[in-house]
């Protein structure tokens, strides 16, 4: 809004983008690239969670379930129905949003702690169903052998393939950038302002003509859409799914990412997801109780939450 194009902020963003896009050219270690890809997936999920929790102020403890629903629905469509990856990706986002609508309509009638517990119970229900419905989801054995994204055909007989880890990185990086861009635009629009009005004071914003139910539902659905997207990318990248991917511990981890980086800020979930994912991937194999450390971070950080 009237900002100079060559402001410091834009310069930093440009440098970060150049850095992000050039990574596969100077990072040769598959392991490091894998960690960065995981960071991007978790950053995507955390960013979408932040829209509902940070900007709209509703403690949605079912985000992991939506991530899992996105992952499982795309995995199942590809494996059991033989659908191509790309339509499966789009459909799995829509399925996630549809489930979000079914849950959001009753759950959003409640407020505060009731909403948090209601969504958390829903999260458990999803995990139990995935775990028990063996005919569909293979239950605890997990869903094995989900193929990497299908190649995109180009003219002149060429195609973009996703067999290399670098190509997968670009796919996930671009998805993350789209997520950040769209959520940034939403937050800085009238819609975003109505989200923050709800966060500030629900009754007052209703008196100003903002429909609390519609606004919260909209924020909820947008955030489930991106959670489903991130889940579908996770399924194709890792190639294996087990019911734990929808567990409420995933929700709690995403919450930790948002909290550490700063709830209700654009960069917070990104920073949190990157730092904590890198630390926990590097600590794998080392006998450090990772979640105990997360716990202490959470217990000591609440005073810094959000920009109230």
């Amino acid at each position, binding site marked *: 809004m009237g900002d100079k194009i060559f402001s410091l902020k834009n310069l930093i963003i440009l440098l970060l983008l150049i850095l992000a896009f050039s990574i596969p050219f100077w990072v040769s270690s598959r392991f490091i690239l894998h960690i960065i890809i995981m960071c991007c997936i978790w950053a995507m999920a955390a960013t979408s969670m932040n829209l509902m929790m940070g900007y709209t102020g509703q403690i949605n403890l079912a985000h992991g379930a939506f991530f899992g629903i996105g992952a499982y629905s795309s995995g199942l469509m590809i494996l059991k129905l033989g659908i191509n990856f790309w339509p499966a990706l789009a459909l799995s986002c829509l399925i996630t949003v549809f489930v979000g609508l079914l849950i959001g309509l009753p759950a959003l009638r409640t407020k505060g702690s009731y909403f948090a517990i209601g969504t958390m*119970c829903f999260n458990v229900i999803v995990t139990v169903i995935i775990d028990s419905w063996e005919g569909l989801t293979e239950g605890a054995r997990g869903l094995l052998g989900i193929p990497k994204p299908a190649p995109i055909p180009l003219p002149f007989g060429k195609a973009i393939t996703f067999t290399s880890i670098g190509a997968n990185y670009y796919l996930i990086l671009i998805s993350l950038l789209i997520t950040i861009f769209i959520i940034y635009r939403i937050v800085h629009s009238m819609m975003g302002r109505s989200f923050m009005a709800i966060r500030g004071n629900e009754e007052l914003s209703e008196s100003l003509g903002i429909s609390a139910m519609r606004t919260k539902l909209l924020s909820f659905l947008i955030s489930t859409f991106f959670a489903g997207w991130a889940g579908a990318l996770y399924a194709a990248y890792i190639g294996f799914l087990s019911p734990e991917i929808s567990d409420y511990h995933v929700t709690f981890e995403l919450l930790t990412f948002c909290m550490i980086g700063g709830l209700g800020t654009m960069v917070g979930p990104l920073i949190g997801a990157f730092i904590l994912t890198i630390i926990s991937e590097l600590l794998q194999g080392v006998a450090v*109780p990772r979640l*105990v450390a997360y716990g202490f971070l959470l217990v000591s*950080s609440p005073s810094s939450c959000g920009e109230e």
Partner: protein
Amino acid sequence: MMVLFIQQVLNGIMLGSIYSLVALGLTLEYGILQIPNFAHGALYMMGAYVTFLLATALGLNFWLAMIVAMIVLGLVGILVERLVYRPLMLESHLSSFIAAIGLIFIFGDGVLNIFGPDFKRFPPTNAQAFHILGITITLQRILIIVVTIALIVVLQLFIKKTTMGATIEATAQDMEGAQLMGINVSRVRMIVFALGTALAASAAALIAPIHLVHPNMGGPVILKAFVIIILGGMGSIPGAIIGGFIMGLVESLSGGYISTSYNEVFAFGVLVIVLTIRPTGLFGAKG
């Protein structure tokens, strides 16, 4: 047919006793925190481990182990209140919420790292079985019901008949008002936390000889306790007791007649339906 039914009802009452004790602690804590104490399930799990350690490593008698575990967990509850929730008293509720989730990580993963993920089997305790008219029930199950009722009666007497109990009720109703009347609110908070976690520990100790002890045992129980206090009205003591028994009966009857693998879906399904119709719970204030 009738025998199966009575057997399931007895099991339901036994389970319901455990749920009532956990929900009672949770509802008391809700009264002063104004948020559900998510860490309650982790403290319940710790109670089972402390009892298990005392009974196996030190070879204490089961009842002695249970009482010591209640005292230990009561002290842990006080520490949690002092170190974690007290500094957040004036912050938004979201802060206490997040801190509670942090506590789950600390206790859950801490126990997992110290004792490992495997299930611990409690030494057989009060395993004598009684056979009456085709119904089989072990002594431990009978004792669970008896001890729970005794604990509930003692708690009721404590809250209704003593001054300390009255101050707890007053604080839960209106913290500022209680403070103005000269009630030492910080002492009340301490006592409530000690009571709440000791109740959770007693429930965990009672069920430990029947179910197995493992790091994730708190999760399902605490979620059901949440459902109970939501349905029974947050902060309501009779709601928690009655709700606990109803939950136990629903679980054992649906498990006996329909399917056990979906019993959480039934419990939480009921909650989702109730919240759809009454967003503040069955007995909660209209809001």
